[in-house]
């Protein structure tokens, strides 16, 4: 196995293009674990550690944020600029695994891995994020909802890699919240609900909801959001929205919970998430 340490993104992309069996190495929290278990055997690793342009987080002119792919979960958990609606991303990052993993795991790595039971995909869908994908000849932005395609499968084409995550400006007064139910703190979610919510005069004026660990990709149902819009987020509205979300869920059965149990959690966690976001709303 070869080990490359490119100094910039173009070099990294050239190395990946030259060898389809090579893999980019971000933090290694997932890739090295899989290598240790012999689930993957890359021909070469292209370390992204030395690439400065992947390590920054900037505010954009439109009031959003551009998060470099190599920002660690610990970085994001401590990032004060992830406020308001963007707080959903900060909270999701803060609950990933445990401190040692958060110190090395990266947002780019997590997004490229595309595990729907992990925390960032659902949070990014709720935040209406776009994934900045860079290939040898082009750069494109893919809506998070379209980026995650299946279990551990994204729309990255051969030779492409995640270079940044783009968060749009959130509506004024929006509050983000990530509600996660897991067997133990830091475990993969049994079910999670990511919301971005804005209220006006006691009524919901804006809402985006995405579920994690509810199917092969984050689950978002615009019709469910429509049921919440204009409502006071009363029990009936939440029930109606939950019913629509449940129809779109296809959770797995595993040690963290049966499919049936996960579906049972949907209305409960949705209610908790919306209540928590409301509490944070100005």
């Amino acid at each position, binding site marked *: 196995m070869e080990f490359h340490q490119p100094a910039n993104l173009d070099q990294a992309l050239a190395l990946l293009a030259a060898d389809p069996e090579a*893999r980019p190495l971000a933090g290694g929290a997932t890739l090295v674990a*899989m290598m240790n*278990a*012999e*689930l*993957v055997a890359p021909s070469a690793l292209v370390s992204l550690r030395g690439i400065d342009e992947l390590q920054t987080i900037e505010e954009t002119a439109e009031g959003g944020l551009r998060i470099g792919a190599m920002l660690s979960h610990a970085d994001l958990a401590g990032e004060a600029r992830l406020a308001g609606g963007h707080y959903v991303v900060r909270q999701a990052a803060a609950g990933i695994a445990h401190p040692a993993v958060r110190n090395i795991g990266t947002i780019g790595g997590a997004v490229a*891995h*595309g595990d729907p039971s992990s925390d960032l995909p659902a949070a990014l869908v709720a935040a209406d994020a776009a994934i900045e994908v860079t290939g040898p000849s082009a750069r494109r932005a893919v809506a998070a909802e379209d980026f995650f395609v*299946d*279990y*551990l*499968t994204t729309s990255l084409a051969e030779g492409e890699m995640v270079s940044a995550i783009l968060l749009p400006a959130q509506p004024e007064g929006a509050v983000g919240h990530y509600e996660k139910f897991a067997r133990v703190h830091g475990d993969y979610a049994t079910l999670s609900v990511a919301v971005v919510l804005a209220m006006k005069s006691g009524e919901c004026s804006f809402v985006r909801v995405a579920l994690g660990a509810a199917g*092969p990709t984050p689950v978002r149902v615009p019709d469910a959001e429509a049921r919440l819009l204009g409502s006071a987020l009363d029990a009936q509205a939440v029930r109606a929205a939950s019913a629509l979300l449940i129809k779109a869920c*296809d959770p*797995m*059965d*595993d*040690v*963290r919970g049966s499919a049936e149990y996960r579906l049972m959690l949907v209305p409960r966690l949705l209610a908790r998430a919306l209540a928590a976001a409301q509490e944070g709303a100005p």
Partner: protein
Amino acid sequence: MIIEETFTVDAPLDHVWECIRDPAFVAPCVPGCQDVEDIGNGAYRAAVKVGIGPIKTMFKLEIEVLEEAPPGFARIATRGQEGTNASRLTAKSELTLSAAGDGETKVHYKSDVQVVGRLAKFGLGIMKKKAKALGAEFAENFRVAAES
């Protein structure tokens, strides 16, 4: 995990039975099947490529027909491993064919599949989902092939 499929093939019962009991016919219908070899005594060896995202591996399987009552019923046992025993698989399957009128055949199979080892440890939940999808894909591939 249980993989169960019921589907209808627009072809007569005897023909469908011939097809489904012919490993050379069935193998190309199984997604990822690379190879199938008759090792005699109603037993076959097969290699099936499996992949979830970046994880790609090859299951080496031994399939034995334990019991059959042509043209309607067969009981099959499958044993296999991947990654030099890193994961091990056993499956007990039952296959039932019945005439569905109008020259059509109803095919029903039910497999009880157990996987232990690294793939089970890392992604049993994902595997179950993939297995269901594979079952459905096999059913469609077989139907199309048997009808042509």
